[in-house]
């Protein structure tokens, strides 16, 4: 039995040494050891013998057969790669342009839905809406146009965003009708205050939402539009909508740093996310944009289905809650204008606590039965209303009125559902 050698290197290390895989300083130390160690030298010599013998064999000549076709195949592949790269470059440019355009389009498209939350309209937008509205358009056409997202997009491209309140008012004025917001204002304010009171948001945060910087004051709105719209506007702000103004839309494209308030900042950050995605992935559209772009029509259709369901449920048993099915449908469709992704984005950006609470309530509702459903269902109705999830709120409120008719909750749910009618065109409103 061989006595152990204290500094004997590992066989694997010697193997690595033979194949030059040991770093130079360590290799020097190992070679010093090998020079004085018969066993290690023998092992290294054995490896070297085999390697030398193996390398003495002349290399085999590969066959010529198939070489020509292989090279031709490679050339074809290179040509394909060239064209693909060219195509990808074009695609990258196109997708970047599309993403940019989409960001431009999505933000204003999103804006009318903020109007659902009675977002403040900048002073003078009523005038703009009036100036832009074609006086010869028939009422039916206008209603259809309102429900047509593509039309919205085109309109948003053409003009600075106006709040739906302003839009509705403009239409009402065109038809010499009273402004619908006046009627709904006290109800809306009352409902929104109730909804806000139930939430756990800190008081400062609520105050911030009530006074978004850059939003026109009640006085300004009052001077340019109907003075009594301010109540509805304030209620909308309380609900955390903090809708963007026309100037917010423009500034959000430039920089988040130039934001003048919480609403603007949130909007700008949403926008910047999309823009940075587009920039970082030139070859393909950013996930959010890609997901939104092709599927937008189907999402709208899906939303419309939900909207119709909401309208059906809202109109059926409680005629006092919602005046007519048409009314509910129009309300819900107005609410459904933003894509669901944008809705969730807005919801997440606005009130994470509310969103979390809403999820919790929905979970409760999956198991609750009978009277146990009343509380959570009512809470869902109120939360969705305060989160500006129009169709969802109408749907859940109508469930309350259906499942618990004649109760105070049903009455409150009816009021909430009616609160969304603020956005209805005047004809439907009446």
């Amino acid at each position, binding site marked *: 039995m061989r006595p152990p050698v204290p500094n004997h290197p590992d066989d*694997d290390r010697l193997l690595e040494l033979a194949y030059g895989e040991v770093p130079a300083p360590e290799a020097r130390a190992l070679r010093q050891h090998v020079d004085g160690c018969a066993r290690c030298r023998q092992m290294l010599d054995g490896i*070297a013998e085999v390697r030398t*013998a193996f390398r003495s*064999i002349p290399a085999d*000549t590969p*066959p010529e057969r198939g*070489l020509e076709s292989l090279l031709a195949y490679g050339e074809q592949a*290179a040509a394909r790669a060239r064209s693909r790269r060219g195509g990808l470059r074009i695609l990258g440019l196109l997708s970047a342009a599309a993403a940019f355009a989409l960001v431009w389009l999505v933000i204003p498209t999103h804006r009318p839905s903020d109007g659902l939350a009675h977002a403040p309209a900048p002073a003078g937008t009523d005038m703009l809406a009036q100036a832009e509205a074609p006086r010869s358009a028939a009422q039916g056409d206008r209603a259809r146009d309102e429900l047509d997202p593509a039309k919205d997009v085109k309109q948003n491209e053409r003009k600075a965003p106006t709040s739906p309140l302003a839009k509705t008012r403009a239409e009402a004025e065109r038809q010499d009708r009273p402004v619908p917001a006046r009627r709904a204002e006290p109800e809306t304010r009352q409902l929104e205050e109730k909804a806000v009171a139930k939430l756990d948001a800190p008081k400062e945060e609520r105050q911030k939402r009530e006074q978004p910087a850059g939003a026109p004051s009640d006085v300004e709105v009052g001077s340019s539009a109907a003075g009594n719209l301010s109540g509805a506007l304030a209620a909308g702000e309380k609900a955390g909508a903090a809708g963007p103004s026309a100037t917010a839309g423009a500034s959000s494209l430039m920089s988040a740093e130039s934001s003048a308030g919480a609403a603007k900042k949130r909007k700008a950050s949403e926008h910047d996310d999309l823009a940075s995605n587009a920039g970082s992935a030139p070859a393909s559209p950013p996930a959010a944009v890609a997901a939104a772009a092709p599927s937008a029509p189907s999402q709208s259709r899906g939303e419309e289905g939900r909207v119709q369901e909401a309208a059906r449920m809202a109109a059926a048993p409680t005629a006092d809650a919602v005046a007519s099915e048409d009314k509910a449908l129009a309300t819900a469709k107005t609410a459904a204008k933003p894509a669901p992704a944008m809705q969730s984005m807005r919801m997440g950006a606005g009130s994470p606590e509310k969103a979390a609470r809403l999820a919790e309530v929905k979970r409760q509702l999956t198991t609750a039965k009978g009277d146990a459903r009343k509380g959570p269902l009512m809470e869902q109705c109120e939360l969705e209303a305060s989160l500006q999830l129009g169709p969802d709120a109408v749907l859940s409120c109508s469930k309350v009125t259906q499942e618990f008719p004649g109760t105070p909750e049903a009455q409150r749910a009816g009021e909430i559902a009616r609160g969304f009618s603020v956005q209805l065109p005047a004809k439907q409103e009446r």
Partner: protein
Amino acid sequence: MRRFQRGDARAFPALVRRHRAAVFAFVLRWTQDRARAEDILQETWLKVVRASNDWSPRARFTTWLYTIARNACVDGARRERARATEPLVTEPVSTEAHDPERAAAASELRPLLEAAIATLPEAQREVFLLREMAGIPFHEIARMTGAPEPTVKSRMRYALEALRTRLTAAGVDAPAGGQVA
């Protein structure tokens, strides 16, 4: 390879010129059958073209190339075993019919060494050929084959030991003491 990925038509012939002979030698030693080796060689390069977009500059091209060749050899051997018409490796490779001059120059050593390689277990032969012929470091062989690095090294040591024993038994005195690395 990067040039080829970008669509440079001259890059691929350059790659083929540089690596084809070595890959063929590797495949031939593995399969011990010239006809099969030629098929696998062609298959390997076709795969290189088809999978060229998968290659990333982070990986050495030779490692990637020999991984493809090795996989083609493994698949070929599996197919052969499934057919089971003849033993996988029995006879030493004879290249005389294709290249008589070179075969003559190889003298006695070539058939002896090839026979010795042919008798190695497949796992040892694989490691030996990848390290000795393709020049792939042990840690990369471990990644290619999915075996732990110490296992790869021990397989290599066993292969070297077996080859040395066979050569010694055949009376071949290879020049000893050379620092081949």
